[in-house]
């Protein structure tokens, strides 16, 4: 259906020749834009209708006071299903500290949350198939677990800003949500507007980059440099991903284009994770609650973890 639409627009309406670079790129762009946004709206609406989208306040209640292994498991799973806005990461960090949740568990949550969410997972299945989706999610969950444990070893408490320990949180008392069908519908529409309004730029940018890669990057060049034999392609992908930022949905079209041209799977996964989870703006936001050594450690732990994941997949794929 999306293919027909893209054919119609690119070859019919604009009269571009199939097989030429601009036509290929544009075809990719039109098709992915239509497909990804259709999926986004449908998934978020359904989630909203079921009220399946958890708030950080609820996550905090579930995680607090649990034994460490259970707290970490919950934090990672709930982090993966909470599409929270990175602008909330400071109050979220403080709220977790205030609840006595161990810092390592909080870091596990902060790693899992931008990297995986159910919306991106469904789109990943739709665009790249369930196998790749499962690999990405499994790798993300593992990195979040190990990353938090490693961070803990360095006693990051000493780098938390002093004022954070002094804040006392009040009890949140929100009015009961409207549980009627009309109320659910209103909530779901608001969620769609809120989330799509927040991430559409990243998604369009991701599709544009994917389209350019698909149309203009020669396969021979990919085969020589990015097909998996060169050891340096994975760390290079991770480094490239640090200054770049997109959200978990926005990286999917980039991965699609890369895999289509024959880029090795580990290299692709490493770049996806690095773009989604390691970003400079995100780090600068966290600077309000933790000092530079902790940020540097956070970035290094993630960069090493992504590189290892990339190498592992390249070696066994």
């Amino acid at each position: 259906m999306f293919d027909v639409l893209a054919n119609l627009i690119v070859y019919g309406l604009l009269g571009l020749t199939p097989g030429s670079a601009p036509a290929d790129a544009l075809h990719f762009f039109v098709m992915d834009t239509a497909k990804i946004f259709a999926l986004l709206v449908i998934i978020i609406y359904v989630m909203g209708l079921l009220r399946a989208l958890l708030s950080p306040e609820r996550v905090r209640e579930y995680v607090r006071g649990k034994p460490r292994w259970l707290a970490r498991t919950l934090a990672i799973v709930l982090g993966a299903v909470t599409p929270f806005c990175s602008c909330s990461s400071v109050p979220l960090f403080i709220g977790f500290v205030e609840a006595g949740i161990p810092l390592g568990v909080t870091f596990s949550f902060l790693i899992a949350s931008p990297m995986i969410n159910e919306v991106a997972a469904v789109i990943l299945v739709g665009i790249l198939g369930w196998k790749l989706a499962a690999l990405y999610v499994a790798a993300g969950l593992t990195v979040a677990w190990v990353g938090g444990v490693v961070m803990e070893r360095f006693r990051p408490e000493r780098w938390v800003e002093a004022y954070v320990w002094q804040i006392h949180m009040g009890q949140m008392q929100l009015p009961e949500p409207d549980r009627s069908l009309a109320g659910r519908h209103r909530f779901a529409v608001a969620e769609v507007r809120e989330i799509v309004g927040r991430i559409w730029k990243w998604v369009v940018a991701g599709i544009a980059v994917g389209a350019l890669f698909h149309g203009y990057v020669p396969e021979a060049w990919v085969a020589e440099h990015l097909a998996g034999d060169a050891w340096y392609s994975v760390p290079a992908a991770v480094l490239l991903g640090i200054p770049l930022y997109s959200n978990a949905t926005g990286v999917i079209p980039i991965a699609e284009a890369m895999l289509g041209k024959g880029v090795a799977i580990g290299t692709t996964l490493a770049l996806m994770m690095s773009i989604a989870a390691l970003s400079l703006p995100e780090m600068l936001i966290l600077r309000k609650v933790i000092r530079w050594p902790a940020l540097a450690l956070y970035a290094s732990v993630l960069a090493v973890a992504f590189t290892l994941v990339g190498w592992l997949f390249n070696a066994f794929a």
Partner: protein
Amino acid sequence: MKTIKVLGSGCKNCETTANLIRIAAEQAGVAITLEKVTDMAEIMSYGVMSTPGVVVDGKLVHAGGLPGPDQIREWIDG
């Protein structure tokens, strides 16, 4: 006069929420005191982690995401 506080440390949605409330109050011809709370300790004292939060006369009525137009009307009229 109603006092409405918007809780949030300078995120874009927080600005938008404050503006929406101000405009809605003007249109309804209701005088309100609109206050933007950016101090993290005060924000958290309401138990809010997802911003923007909205507090009407000391009572928390909203947390996380942009509020809908009918919600805002309710805060101003109710």
